């Protein structure tokens, strides 16, 4: 069978399934569809408004609008390119090497190269659509600032196709080499290493501007500094440079220059795909076979091709044993839950992205900290930071804690049938997730407060808030997770039953996220009110009227206890009568 026929058949089948999935939305809850639609529209409207506002402010700098606007595009696409490469590596490994569909395709009378090509296209689509979606408001705002016609957006869309093909090809080459020459367990560590190096590079190379540099006398020097620091993004060897140059040229009406950079981009994308094809011809099938032929991971075999016997450390056991009065069954459950999470690559890749974004957020705070001109701004920023940390926590608990009960799935009977009882299983999940979430969010809050130079009493207040919130949000997530579990269809050939992302995307996950956001809004509202009134009377920096803070904290405590206890008690009742 020719590759074209193979791709056509697969495209038809996928289009049919996609259509069916869209139609199935009618059967889903209105709550879920409404929340998703609201978020999409909200993001686009708010995103467009913020970018438009930013571009308008840039336009107010006489003579520099074009330079700053263009440099911002170069910077944006350079970051987008790096993110796309990373995203292609993470998604590609699962799509190409871990997917049961790839295994099935390799039994068909088609060339393995064609299977790889199809999977590469799938990876590129999965890895790129979100970035394109997220960058759309920026594109629209840029176009509006440049006063372009609709034709410009069509050309930009065409430009994006070769631009996304290059990181897809680069990512695929990295994956092919990893799969062929490294043990699959090394992938997790390689990913972790790349992420750590990326964040370290960002910390070293992304420097915040000094606030006083934005005063008119230093403006020229500051601009020079900005241009110099971002010059790496205007290297003509970068695909992001070709994309941005083409866009800028088309935005200014220089069709020939725009077409030239488009051709540069297109030819390089084709070359990258060609190289990727050549590499895949040599490495894909070997890598796939090797990836599915590896026994237990042994460091010596992976590195030196001979086994090395290392003493078993058992860090996890030692850590859990630090809690001496822990029930043996609870200890076993804690170790099981942590171990399962650690070994689940689908959880890991999303966890890596999640913490990558948090890392970037914290790095960006350095520049915000420099811009305190008034205490009111400081108060505003510190509460914004509390909001961001709380939202992070709500996302963390919904994505990783909510699916925990459903993930027991068909294995629920194992823990359900032991004398220990499901109630205690649920409580163990609550305590474990609360402690872990509190640790992560507390670290984030302390780091960000320190970077924002928030006063110590306010840091203490916010730290206590996020700890309380961790318990409450985990109560919501564990409770709703047990009240609305998703165990899949339970058939052997359904490969998605254990997919946490699929569990979260159901009604229960959406409901959990909405409830978490409502809780976050209530708590922050309760805390902002006395601070706002205090600031209005005597400024920020001291505790101010104690009764206000006391009342606010009583309110926060009551809301948090209710948020944790109501879903948890309902869930405990539910699991008591659950038929396993």
């Amino acid at each position: 069978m020719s590759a074209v026929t193979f791709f056509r058949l697969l495209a038809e089948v996928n289009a049919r399934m996609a259509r069916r999935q869209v139609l199935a939305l009618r059967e889903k809850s209105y709550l879920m569809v409404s929340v998703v639609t609201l978020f999409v529209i909200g993001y686009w409207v708010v995103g467009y408004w913020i970018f438009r506002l930013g571009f308008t402010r840039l336009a107010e700098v006489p003579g520099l609008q074009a330079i700053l606007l263009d440099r911002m595009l170069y910077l944006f696409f350079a970051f987008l390119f790096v993110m796309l490469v990373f995203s292609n590596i993470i998604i590609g490994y699962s799509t190409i090497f871990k997917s049961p569909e790839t295994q099935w395709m390799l039994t068909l009378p088609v060339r393995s190269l064609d299977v790889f090509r199809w999977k590469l296209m799938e990876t590129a689509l999965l890895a790129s659509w979100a970035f394109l979606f997220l960058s759309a408001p920026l594109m629209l705002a840029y176009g509006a600032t440049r006063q372009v016609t609709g034709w410009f957006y069509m050309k930009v869309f065409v430009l994006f196709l070769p631009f996304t093909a290059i990181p897809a090809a680069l990512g695929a080459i990295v994956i092919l080499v990893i799969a062929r020459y490294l043990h699959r367990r090394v992938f997790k560590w390689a990913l972790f290493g790349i992420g750590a190096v990326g964040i370290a590079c960002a910390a070293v190379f992304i420097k915040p501007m000094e606030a006083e540099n934005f005063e008119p006398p230093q403006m020229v020097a500051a601009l020079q500094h900005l241009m110099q620091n971002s010059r790496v993004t205007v290297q003509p060897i970068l695909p992001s440079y070709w994309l941005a140059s083409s866009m800028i040229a088309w935005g200014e009406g220089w069709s020939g220059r725009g077409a030239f950079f488009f051709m540069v981009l297109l030819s390089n994308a084709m070359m990258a795909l060609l190289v990727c094809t050549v590499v895949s011809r040599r490495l894909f099938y070997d890598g796939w076979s090797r990836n599915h032929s590896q026994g237990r991971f042994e460091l010596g075999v992976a590195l030196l091709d001979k086994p090395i016997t290392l003493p078993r450390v058992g860090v996890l056991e030692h850590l859990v044993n630090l809690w001496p009065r822990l029930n043996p069954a609870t200890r076993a459950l804690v170790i099981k839950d942590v171990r399962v999470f650690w070994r689940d690559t689908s959880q890991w890749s999303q966890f890596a992205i999640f913490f990558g974004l948090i890392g970037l957020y914290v790095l960006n705070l350095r520049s915000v900290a420099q811009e305190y001109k008034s205490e009111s701004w400081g108060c505003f920023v510190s509460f914004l930071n509390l909001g961001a940390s709380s939202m992070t926590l709500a996302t963390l608990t919904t994505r990783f804690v909510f699916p925990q009960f459903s993930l027991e799935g068909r294995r629920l009977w194992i823990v359900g049938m032991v004398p220990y009882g499901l109630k205690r299983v649920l409580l163990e999940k609550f305590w474990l997730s609360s402690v872990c979430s509190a640790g992560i969010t507390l670290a984030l809050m302390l780091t960000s407060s320190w970077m924002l130079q928030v006063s110590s009493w306010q840091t203490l207040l916010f730290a206590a808030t996020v700890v309380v919130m961790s318990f409450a949000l985990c109560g919501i997530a564990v409770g709703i997770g047990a009240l609305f579990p998703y165990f899949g269809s339970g058939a052997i050939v359904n490969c998605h039953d254990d997919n946490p992302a699929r569990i979260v995307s159901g009604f229960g996950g959406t409901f959990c996220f909405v409830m978490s956001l409502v809780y976050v809004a209530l708590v922050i509202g309760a805390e902002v009110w006395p601070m706002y009134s205090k600031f209005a009377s005597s400024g920020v920096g001291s505790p101010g009227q104690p009764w206000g803070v006391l009342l606010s904290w009583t309110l926060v405590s009551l809301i948090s206890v209710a948020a944790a206890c109501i879903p948890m008690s309902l869930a405990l009742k539910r699991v008591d009568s659950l038929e396993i």
Partner: protein
Amino acid sequence: MILTEHLTKRFGGLTAVHDLNLDIPQGQCFAFLGPNGAGKTTTIKLLAGLLKPTSGRALVGGHDIQKDPVAARKLIGFVPDMPFLYDKLDPVEFMLFIGQLYGMRRGEVEPAIDELFDVFDLNETRKQIIENLSHGTRQRLVIASALLHEPKVIIIDEPMVGLDPRSARVVKNVLKQRSRAGVTVFLSTHILSIAEELADRIGILNRGKLIATGTIDQLREMSGEVGALEDAFLALTPEEEEEGATREAP
């Protein structure tokens, strides 16, 4: 029709399949028996070209599965232990898709689907989405899809998993009919009664090594047991590994 020569597969330090030599002629139903972890599924994956052998080779219909995989796979109808289906398709759409992947024209596929749906009692599920089908129905659909292109070789791993007695009977009948019609059947199972009922020849694999091949009577003779195949199997697969060559019937 199926030939393996010194086929060996190692997973790190573990040898899953060791120096496997098999010659299964056209029209023979060959059952591969062995305890859990004996290497049955690995052998099947090697025959289907899903894994690359560490050494040796496997030929299907004269085509080396590594050197000429497309030609070999055209001849194979493969049912793995963990089959894959597209959840959001209905059974007819899935079968049409499979037929076209094997180069069948729509005019050829539709009558074949009708025939297989009658045999496997799938007519009532024609318009249901696959994700809503029961475990057994999915398994029947997977087996039907593997037979759609009239393969010359059927490779099937644990065929009766999830099937009710009626469906299991249907599958056994179909495999027998196909075998009589000249199709080579290679099935792996650890359910001895299936092998007893279906197989012309049985191979017993233990710890990656083929320890015996022959008909049921020949295996009984080799083991020195006169009772059921179970006794012969247990006698031939002791818990402690014994060194020695494959015992092959003349």
